[in-house]
């Protein structure tokens, strides 16, 4: 395995700097954002590297639980931040976070215990990256789907209420919109699975191959991860949409858009 030196990384950083200079020259207004994001990547990943190093040295369920919780809360915040119209009160954060917790943690634990079978099952070398992969992708799916659901419900409130007036239940009145939201939440992972290996080499597999793993081993892990991600995203999105669609109505089947905040920056 060829290890990377600080000089190697600096050379790659020069490319980002060059891009920032170009963007500044063309007045795209992106250079600031680009540099901040690049700096964040360095700092956050270095910190995580240190944390993982410490974690691998002290294998304890409590430590794993702690870092899992931090990851979950960060993902939950991200889902909330991406909503144009989020639910008011604790629901804004709790809904997406709860759905991610249920699907990602359930699938991660199931996989660790039954498929990977490390000893102990929470061996951080497997548990942390697996959960990270699951959370990251489930987060994307849920954020997209929730945003689609609430934005469409807002735009089409007259149609939803028309269906209610004609005697539809809340479930019938929102079912088309929920189906659309489900599609937009699942589309990224379905696309990723369809083109995997043809158009793109998935990042995880690429990393493993670069780090010296035999390609077929890397491929097997990648297939496992893809399946887990699609299941995790699917169950997570389903749970989030089920909760959100319920939350949009009250027990008398009235559309209650007052459960949503108005969007920011409007």
């Amino acid at each position, binding site marked *: 395995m060829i290890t990377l030196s600080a000089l190697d990384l600096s050379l790659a950083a020069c490319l980002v700097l060059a891009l920032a200079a170009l963007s500044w020259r063309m007045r795209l207004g992106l250079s600031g954002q680009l540099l901040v994001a690049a700096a964040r990547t360095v700092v956050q990943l270095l910190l995580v590297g240190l944390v993982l190093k410490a974690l691998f040295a002290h294998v304890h369920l409590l430590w794993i639980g702690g870092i899992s919780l931090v990851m979950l809360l960060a993902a939950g915040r991200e889902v909330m931040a991406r909503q144009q119209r989020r639910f008011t009160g604790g629901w804004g954060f709790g809904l997406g976070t709860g759905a991610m917790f249920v699907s990602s943690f359930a699938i991660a634990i199931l996989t660790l215990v039954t498929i990977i079978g490390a000893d102990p099952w929470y061996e951080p070398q497997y548990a942390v990256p697996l959960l990270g992969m699951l959370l990251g992708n489930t987060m994307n799916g849920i954020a997209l789907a929730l945003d689609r659901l609430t934005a469409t419900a807002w735009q089409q409130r*007259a*149609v939803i*209420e*028309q*269906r*209610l*007036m*004609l*005697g*539809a*239940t809340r479930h019938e009145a929102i079912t*088309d919109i929920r189906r659309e939201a489900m599609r937009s939440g699942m589309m990224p992972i379905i696309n990723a699975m369809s083109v995997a290996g043809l158009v793109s080499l998935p990042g995880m597999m690429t990393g493993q191959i670069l780090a010296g793993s035999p390609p077929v081993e890397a491929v097997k892990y990648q297939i496992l991860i893809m399946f887990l991600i699609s299941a995790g995203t699917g169950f997570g999105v389903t749970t989030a949409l089920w909760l959100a669609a319920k939350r949009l109505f*009250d027990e*008398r*089947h*009235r*559309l209650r858009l007052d459960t949503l905040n108005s969007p920011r920056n409007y």
Partner: protein
Amino acid sequence: MSRLQVNELRTHGRGPYSLYIADGECVSLRGPSGAGKSLLLRAIADLDPHQGQVQLDDTPCTQIPAPQWRRRVSLLPAESQWWADEVGAHFAGRECPWLRPLGFGPEVMGWQVSRLSSGEKQRLALARALMNRPQALLLDEPTASLDAANVAAVERLVAGYRTDTGAAVLWVSHDAAQAERVGARHLWLTATGFEEDRP
């Protein structure tokens, strides 16, 4: 045979409104725009949170599931909404006996909603609402975009439905002459209640 009874209804800071419509009776409702006519109809159809009681015959609104209530107490909004591409999908493929009196042939079921005029939409929305065989009708300016011949057709149809089924009708209209024609009694809406209206 259904009577609609509204007791001390409050919604969106308006009211209390009390109202009684006998079976087979049509009551006209007018009032300045912004007085809350549509809000009142929405509350009666249980689409908005409200205080007070609404009752159809001896059944209070709260005693049956809301969807069932809305099939019995049908609100026809001023602007109808359509979710499918074809008209027929909104009738779930069932035969609709009210198309002919409203001037449509059976081929209307295959028409594209996007190509309907606002008048056609308004008449089809009435036919669609009647498919639930409601026992009370809440009509929010049901003839606003119709020509004289179609206004007459709608008025005739609603009167016929009312006498055939004994449904109670609350008819919101801006037109004093129409209110006079369709209603046996006439109400004028204010922010705090009803007054007798003499169109």
